């Protein structure tokens, strides 16, 4: 009965996809608004559906149609799916609300209709991936998701950076699909079925290969280092609401895939857990370290997504290690931590992307060094961003803290793991995890400080104004969700039916508020009430200049120096001389630039050598008939020899 909600939601999304296509050439606001409100409607329906489903814990299974024997397009929505559906619906509803206004400020005239359409399609694909009941439907919609998101990334195709992002994204997406496909095929070879059948063993090498393939595929999509490089390009290139969707939901779909396969299909080996844990830890630490260095706000958020996905993977890895070590309670806690962090990250990251989008559209720059002082000019946006920043920095009592706390609790209790080798690993991992969350606090102090505090550092940011109300409602809901999910974390888990050893954040929040009120009251009665506004003290400078402020670069400088081993720089000197013996200096240039380690030592060489190889192979086709005939001749002789051999 309740299924009808889901079906209606799907059809509404489908309508939202098709409607702007029919009217593709009309550049009207109402078309886009209608299409986007379809998203909102369907998200609400989906949200209700998945919420009820999540609470009741029943799984709904239905088959749409079965054109051929092997393949049936069927959906199954159990608790795990409902959870991710809920996540999707919350984020997409807010993004859609925001988008209705944002899209009107974008370039592209009637092309924007197409953007609406592909956004609908994108959400539809993600919903269907999550709801899929067999691996083939899963992959089918996975590909649809890839294709539609690709259109979204390359929306502003005329910009040079978008082109680069598009290429990166395209290649990495295809690679991800490739690995997922490989995994699904191997699973089919093992089980002879597309269903998520449980495999009792993990010792067969084929199963391990299947897992590795799926893991790689999902890691690429989720942006785990070293497959992360598409993220920091794709996010800044796409429109902010799209970045919010991609970072908030699409990465989670990859997480969903991993969790789904780990829970339903595999009986994970402990070494898999170690692998996931290491991948997660490395991504978390390196992700945030790279984020610290960024001063492009969206790129920074993208790197921070890598970090958060790393945190989620840490939770998943822990869960597997605990399962294999026969500690089911801890396994549940860490898995819940990972899932809860997925939800939280979806919410606060999309909140941050949306507010960052508002800021970017208000200041026309993505460089945080050119912002500043926006707290006065965009008070509501800044408040929302602040909530997001506090959440992502994992500070109590907001939601980012709640989920990281779960993982921390799992970690702290994890010393019960028997194997001493794993203990050492866990200790290293926990230390790095702590470093990660501290660094992310530092990173978002820098971000919030540079964007919103002090004085504006560019004329655009001086003239910035608050965005229209639709662009505040969306983030507003998300910000509220951040607070509610954090404060009521324990209650939520209780309602869903999990007893987790979380502190009662509601109580702590009440205490916090109480203490603040208490302090205020005490001061109110004891202290002086005089307030004066006066120039900041600047060592005797009469008036303060924005250029004298502490910049974002300056802020992260100490950490840059400390982590200089990771931020490799390359110094390039070019000198020209008048004479051959290099005596008379003519002119020269020097530059120091940040070495993008993965890009320059992994991606570019691969690209370069494959291009080289491809050119070599392409020379095969040299345009000369004689050569071609020679090939035929050689092939014929080879075949005749083959005949003599085998026949």
């Amino acid at each position, binding site marked *: 009965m309740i299924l009808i909600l889901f079906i209606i939601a799907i059809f509404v999304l489908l309508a939202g996809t098709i409607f702007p296509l029919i009217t593709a050439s009309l550049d009207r606001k109402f078309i886009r608004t209608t299409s986007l409100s379809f998203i909102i409607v369907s998200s609400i329906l989906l949200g209700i559906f998945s919420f009820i489903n999540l609470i009741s814990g029943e799984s709904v299974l239905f088959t749409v149609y079965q054109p051929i024997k092997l393949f049936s397009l069927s959906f199954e929505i159990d608790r795990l799916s409902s959870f991710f559906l809920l996540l999707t619906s919350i984020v997409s509803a807010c993004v859609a609300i925001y988008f209705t206004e944002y899209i009107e400020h974008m370039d592209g005239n009637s092309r924007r209709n197409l953007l609406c359409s592909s956004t609908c399609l994108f959400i539809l694909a993600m919903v269907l991936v999550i709801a899929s009941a067999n691996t083939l439907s899963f992959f089918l919609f996975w590909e649809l998701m890839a294709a539609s998101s690709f259109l979204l990334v390359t929306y502003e195709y005329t910009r040079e950076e978008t082109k680069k992002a598009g290429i990166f994204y395209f290649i990495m997406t295809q690679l991800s699909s490739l690995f997922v496909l490989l995994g699904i*095929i191997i699973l089919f070879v093992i089980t002879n079925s597309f269903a998520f059948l449980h495999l009792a063993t993990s010792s067969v090498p084929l199963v391990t290969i299947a897992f590795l393939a799926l893991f790689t595929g999902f890691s690429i999509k989720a942006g785990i280092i070293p497959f992360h490089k598409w993220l920091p390009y794709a996010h800044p290139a796409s429109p902010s609401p799209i970045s919010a969707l991609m970072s908030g939901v699409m990465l989670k779909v990859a997480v969903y895939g991993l969790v789904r396969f780990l829970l339903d299909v595999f009986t994970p080996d402990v070494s898999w857990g170690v692998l996931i844990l290491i991948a997660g830890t490395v991504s978390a630490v390196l992700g945030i370290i790279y984020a610290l260095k960024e001063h492009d706000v969206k790129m920074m958020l993208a790197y921070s997504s890598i970090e958060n996905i790393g945190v989620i993977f840490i939770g998943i890895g822990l869960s597997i290690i605990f399962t294999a070590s026969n500690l089911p309670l801890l396994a549940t806690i860490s898995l819940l931590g990972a899932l809860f962090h997925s939800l939280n990250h979806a919410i606060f990251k999309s909140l941050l992307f949306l507010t960052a989008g508002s800021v970017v559209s208000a200041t026309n720059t993505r460089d945080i060094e050119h912002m500043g002082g926006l707290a006065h000019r965009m008070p509501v946006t800044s408040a929302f961003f602040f909530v997001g920043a506090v959440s992502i920095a994992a500070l109590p009592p907001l939601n980012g803290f709640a989920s990281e706390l779960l993982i921390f609790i799992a970690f702290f209790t994890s010393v019960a793991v028997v194997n001493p080798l794993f203990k050492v690993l866990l200790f290293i991992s926990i230390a790095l995890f702590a470093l990660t969350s501290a660094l992310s606090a530092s990173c978002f102090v820098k971000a919030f400080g540079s964007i919103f505090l002090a004085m504006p550092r560019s004329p655009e940011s001086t003239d910035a104004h608050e965005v229209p109300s639709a662009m505040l409602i969306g983030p507003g809901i998300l910000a509220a969700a951040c607070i509610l999910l954090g404060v009521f974390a324990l209650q939520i888990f209780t309602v869903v039916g999990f007893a987790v050893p979380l502190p009662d954040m509601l109580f702590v929040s009440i205490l916090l508020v109480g203490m603040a009120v208490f302090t205020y009251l005490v001061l109110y009665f004891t202290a002086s009430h005089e307030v004066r506004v006066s120039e900041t003290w600047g060592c005797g400078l009469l008036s303060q200049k924005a250029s004298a402020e502490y910049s974002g670069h300056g802020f992260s400088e100490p950490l840059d120096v400390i982590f200089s081993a990771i931020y490799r720089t390359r110094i390039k000197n070019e000198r020209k001389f008048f004479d051959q013996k290099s005596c008379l200096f003519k002119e020269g240039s020097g530059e120091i630039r940040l070495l993008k380690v993965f890009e320059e030592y992994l991606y570019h060489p691969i690209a370069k050598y494959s291009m080289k190889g491809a050119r070599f192979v392409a020379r095969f086709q040299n345009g000369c008939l004689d050569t071609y005939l020679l090939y035929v001749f050689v092939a014929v002789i080879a075949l005749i020899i083959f005949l003599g051999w085998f026949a």
Partner: protein
Amino acid sequence: MILISFVLVSVVSLVLIAVTRNHRHMNTVCIMQALIFAALAVYLALTQHVPVFSFLVGSQYFFIDHFGLFEVLIATVIFTCAATYARGYVEGLLESGELEKGSLKLFYAAWTLLLLLIVFAFFSDNFALFWIFAELTTVISAMLIAILAARENIDAAFKYIFIASISMLFAFVGFIFLFEISRVSLGTGTLNWTVLMQYADRFPTGMLIASFVLVFIGFAAKSGIFPFHTWLPEAHAKAPSAVSAILSGVLLNVGIYGIIRMYAIVHQTIAFTTLAPMITVFGLLTVGISAISMLPQKNLKKLVAFSSVENMGIMLVGLAISTPVALFWVLFQIVAHSLTKASMFFSAGILHRQYRNRFSSDAPDDIRDIFRLQPFAAWIIILSGLAIIGMPPFPLFFSEFFIMLQLGAASLWVLGIMLLLLFIASVGLGYFVLTTFTQMSEPDTGSDIEPYLTPASMKVPIIFLIGLLLIIGIFLPSHGMEYLNQIVMELKF
């Protein structure tokens, strides 16, 4: 009777083309011919109880079975679309002087004849007859390539004829072998597929392998299998786009059709265990070479041509798996590839009209401002590009997926290599689209290019094809599936 009506229609068409001097009339005749052919094929498919034997020349030479009819259906659909497309396209060629007015008659006559020959090829029961028709299609289509009379076109046509014909000679040697085999085993020599299929299990394996390998050389050249594919990228790139669509969508099928027919015979005996690895190697090399060649490719039509080669390689690998399911999806891939490739070449043709670079089809495409000038063609290329790299809901997704699935059961290594190569191919395509379609001209110079007004006759077939693809891909019509199953049964897999 049906065959005679095919011939009659063609003769009437030829006469009409010979009589008229007007381009539009000639074109209409061609469209009509293709439509009538399609109607006849559909009529056969719906009413007759295929396989149909014994008419025209007796059971020896012609017959109609599911497979042949299936190919004929594809061919007529593509021809109808191509003929409609040619209405606007050839007009453009005439206007720009690329096609001389005098050659027009020849062009349409050859066109008409080509369709007839292809239909006959698919309806021939006798391998020798099939061989001859296949040869003739080479000749005629080479003329269609050379018709533009630019040196490059002649060159490409020449390469095509040479490589295809030389290889086809080996195929003929293979048929002589086959004839001898049947003579030894059955007493009387025959090249009739139906008879051969019936008694295939009696054939000596050694000779059969020899025969298959030689036949394979010929039809591999026809369908663009490595290392006999070399003519293909050049011929497809240089032919007028309407012709390229036919070359890629129909003529390549002739080759793969021959290979499948022959393989069906071999499959009855133990010989196929020797041959399957050989075919796999050829298939892999084909996919590999074409996929890698796609990476640095800067010319759209060449790229699309290489993608045809790649698809042929996939079909070959699918065939080598030798399971009924794999064959089923190979057949599915044939339809899907033909329709997709035709729509790609059609849109490439629109771009060619827009950015006329007639004297340098080897040179990189100078495509700029494409979304301003030709948004329709650009979108179709993106869509069909997605289709050709196997994105759902396009049908190629299913065929490639299931072929890979079967491959996975056969050999994991080959599967891994195949997936990697498919990835490379899709990257090649994506890279091209991303780099060329995003090129913008300098603000002040771009405005002097006038958008080429695409006639409706060029758009309609493209929309039709894409719609058809989507319908097939989304609904996987059960009648069609049933039909393909029939073919698989007929081929005794």
